């Protein structure tokens, strides 16, 4: 090949890659622009803070927003402690033997299992097996044995658990062995090493991983389709403690959720075309919510990377 | 903070200076014993040689160890290699002092051949050469070193002159022969001592300036 030809190739292919990248960015922008321009019109305080009315063709989406936040919080509470401690145990305490390898591989792979499979498991195990089972034992009909926020959150927690474990493990493993060795050499015990050396170093990695997994969970629809989401629920999943009148979230109640709301409105609502603005409005809120999480993770990462340099 | 490297070099230097001073003393004593016909002093000189020899071995070992352990370069390297040669020279000077002393012992038994005039003069010059070469080494003084090897020809000339003079003595009276021959050998030893001082002075120039002046004639000027 002549040198001239080689140079033309060089320019051409670099340009090609660049244009692909910009195409993808353009798509992203197009999506955002579309959602914002179509959705921004319906956004106002009453949209955000009112319940839907008129068979969901009017009114706000407050229950969905509330439900999304509730379920995300519940998921965090369920998933993060277990996930992080499991990761710490696996990397720092468990031996690097064959069983350990198998467990690690399984967890890794579970992170890639489709979310609908988790939904399936959620229905089969949490709602039908566990819930119904508890009901049977307690002798109460249909308290646990029906879709509920608790089961939806558990399913989501299970979905993000491998993600949290994997990212935490990665963060822990990125702490150089030599630092651990140094701490041991100063006479530190295992937990002192983890506490004083490994965790501070891995903190940012763990946190970003956690945020990303939360954002993943918050945007998921499939796992909660049958484990707790309600098509329409004019009230909030809140339960007031008698006598003291303190409202608390009722994890055994069903709930509305943003992504599910979009799905329903777009595919199964009575008048799909008429509710388009509401659909876009809801979409905008959902995107804003997840982007906020993602963005914070990204900023976090950049900040920590800069600081650790 | 002084580096351990320099500390070690310092020790070596101190040992060299000590050896040099021992040699200086030995030569001075040998000459003194000759002039003062003091056979006891001469014997002391002979005895002291053992220490000089031991010190030579010690310094040699230090040099080799230093080369092995410290990998000196440039001026440090020149210092070490020159030290090896300088001890060699010093040791020879010590031996020559002993040789002088050994001849003094029989000489001092016999009556004096003649009043010694030239030999003490030659001895003094030689001694200052020794002293100066050592001072030049201690102070890295190339000027002084240069002056040492410039004096060498004086000593050579005196050696010749004394040689001829002593020949005359011998011819005058065969009874003088033994003593004169001893004296001839003593002047020759002094001449050798001056030569060795010259060598040391040359090494000093080499250490400091990295210039080899040996075998070059001594007419080298400052460049």
């Amino acid at each position, binding site marked *: 090949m002549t040198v001239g030809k080689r140079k033309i190739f060089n320019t051409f292919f670099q340009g090609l890659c660049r244009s692909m990248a910009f195409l993808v960015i353009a*798509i992203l922008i197009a999506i955002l622009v579309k959602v914002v321009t179509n959705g921004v019109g319906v956004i106002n305080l009453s949209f955000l803070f009112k319940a839907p009315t008129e068979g969901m063709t009017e009114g706000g989406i407050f229950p969905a927003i509330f439900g999304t936040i509730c379920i995300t919080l519940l998921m965090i509470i369920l998933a993060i402690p277990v996930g992080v401690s499991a990761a710490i145990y696996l990397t720092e305490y468990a031996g690097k033997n064959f069983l350990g390898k198998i467990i690690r591989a399984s967890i890794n792979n579970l992170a890639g299992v489709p979310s*609908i499979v988790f939904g399936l498991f959620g229905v089969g195990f949490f709602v039908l097996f566990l819930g119904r089972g508890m009901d049977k034992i307690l002798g109460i009909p249909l308290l646990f044995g029906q879709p509920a926020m608790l089961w939806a959150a558990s399913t989501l927690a299970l979905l993000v658990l491998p993600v949290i474990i994997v990212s935490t493990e990665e963060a822990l493993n990125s702490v150089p062995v030599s630092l651990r060795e140094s701490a041991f050499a100063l006479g530190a015990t295992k937990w002192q090493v983890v506490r004083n050396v490994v965790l501070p170093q891995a903190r940012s990695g763990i946190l970003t991983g956690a945020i990303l997994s939360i954002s993943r969970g918050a945007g998921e629809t499939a796992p909660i389709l049958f484990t707790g989401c309600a098509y329409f629920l004019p009230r909030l999943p809140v339960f007031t403690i008698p006598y003291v009148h303190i409202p608390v979230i009722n994890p055994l109640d069903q709930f509305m959720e943003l992504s599910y709301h979009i799905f329903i409105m777009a595919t199964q609502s009575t008048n799909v075309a008429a509710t388009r603005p509401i659909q876009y409005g809801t979409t905008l809120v959902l995107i804003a919510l997840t982007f906020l999480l993602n963005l914070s993770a990204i900023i976090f990462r950049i900040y920590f990377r800069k600081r650790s340099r | 903070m002084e580096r351990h490297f320099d500390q070690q070099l310092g020790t070596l230097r101190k040992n060299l200076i000590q050896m040099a001073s021992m040699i200086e003393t030995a030569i001075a004593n040998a000459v003194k014993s000759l002039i003062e016909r003091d056979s006891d002093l001469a014997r002391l000189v002979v005895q002291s040689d053992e220490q000089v020899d031991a010190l030579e071995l010690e310094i040699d070992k230090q040099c080799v160890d230093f080369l092995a352990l410290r990998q000196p370069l440039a001026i440090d390297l020149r210092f070490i290699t020159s030290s090896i040669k300088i001890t060699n020279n010093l040791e020879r000077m010590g031996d020559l002092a002993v040789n002088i002393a050994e001849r003094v012992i029989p000489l001092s038994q016999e009556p004096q051949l003649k009043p010694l005039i030239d030999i003490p003069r030659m001895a003094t010059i030689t001694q200052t050469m020794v002293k100066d070469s050592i001072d030049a080494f201690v102070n890295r003084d190339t000027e002084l070193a240069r002056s040492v090897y410039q004096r060498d020809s004086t000593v050579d000339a005196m050696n010749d002159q004394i040689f001829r003079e002593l020949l005359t003595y011998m011819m005058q009276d065969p009874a003088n022969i033994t003593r004169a021959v001893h004296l001839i050998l003593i002047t020759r030893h002094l001449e050798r001592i001056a030569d060795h001082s010259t060598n040391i002075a040359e090494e000093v120039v080499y250490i400091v300036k990295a210039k080899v002046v040996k075998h070059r004639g001594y007419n080298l000027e400052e460049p």
Partner: protein
Amino acid sequence: MNYDLQSSNFRASNVPNSTSPESGLKRFGDKRISDLLVESRQANVNRQRIQEFIIEKLLFAGGMAAILFIALIFIFLFKEGVKAFFLIKPIEFIGTHILDFDDNRVFACMWQPVGESGKYSIVPLLIGSFLVALPATVISTILGVGCGIYLAEIASAKVREIVKPAIELLAGIPTVVIGFLCLTLLATYVQNAFHTTFRLNAFVGALGVSLVIIPVIASITDDALRAVPNELREASYGLGATKWETIWKVVVPAGISGVTASIILGMGRALGETMIVVMATGNAALVTGNVFSSVRTMTATIAAELGAVPQGGPQYCALFLVGSLLFFITFVLNLVAELIISRMRKKLRL
């Protein structure tokens, strides 16, 4: 200079100077540091041991809980799935004999679980899944790898700072949003462009799914290429290669396992994607090779039908079987990808 001839007290020893520790200097305050430390530790050594023990057990419990749940998924899914084989004849998962319009008995692959004699052929679902996943993988491989190369090799640091998070943001868009946009907008564009019979079809789904997996492929490719040591690039330039030659002949081959893995993982994601395909592919369980026809994927089937099935019935179990199959396929794909990546790590000595 006057030296004493007798005072030659040099050491003739070749042994290093021996000293004992200068313990005077070790003193510190009123006691030695070591004493201080030992004392201090004595005071709380038992507390420390207990703490150590409890924490280890707690972490162990966390680890076990995670492992337990993960094991449960395997077991439960397959347990329910296997039940299907007892309720339905295994051959029926491929197809059943039915009477066609001319009353001929033909062997047909149909998924019609509702009704008297449910038909449980998984074939149309598999076809549907792959009809979405394959085009999606192809499209996103091209774009994703291109983006990855651009990010890792071509973009300047400043541009990268912006483009990489942007692409990651794309990955952060909930799939339901993309599904929604496919359903409302993209489907129309595609129909207008290709004049398809079905407005919602596999191709629309594939395009939607691509948007989800392009960032996955781009990001992993980027990571893989950036893991290629800079020295290899320098070596290549040093031999006179142009930038593209360096990328194509050195960097990409060195990171090829990572790129391959990213594609495989992307394909896994494509097969497992639910909301987009539910909303954009039309959900008709057809046996077809046409990407412009409506299809019903495995995921969509579960999503659409699970809500209304009685527990323990044949359809319930069949859905679990489909779920298990999906699980199995993605699991294998992930495993392969992981093997490839770990092999690359070894290869590049990372």
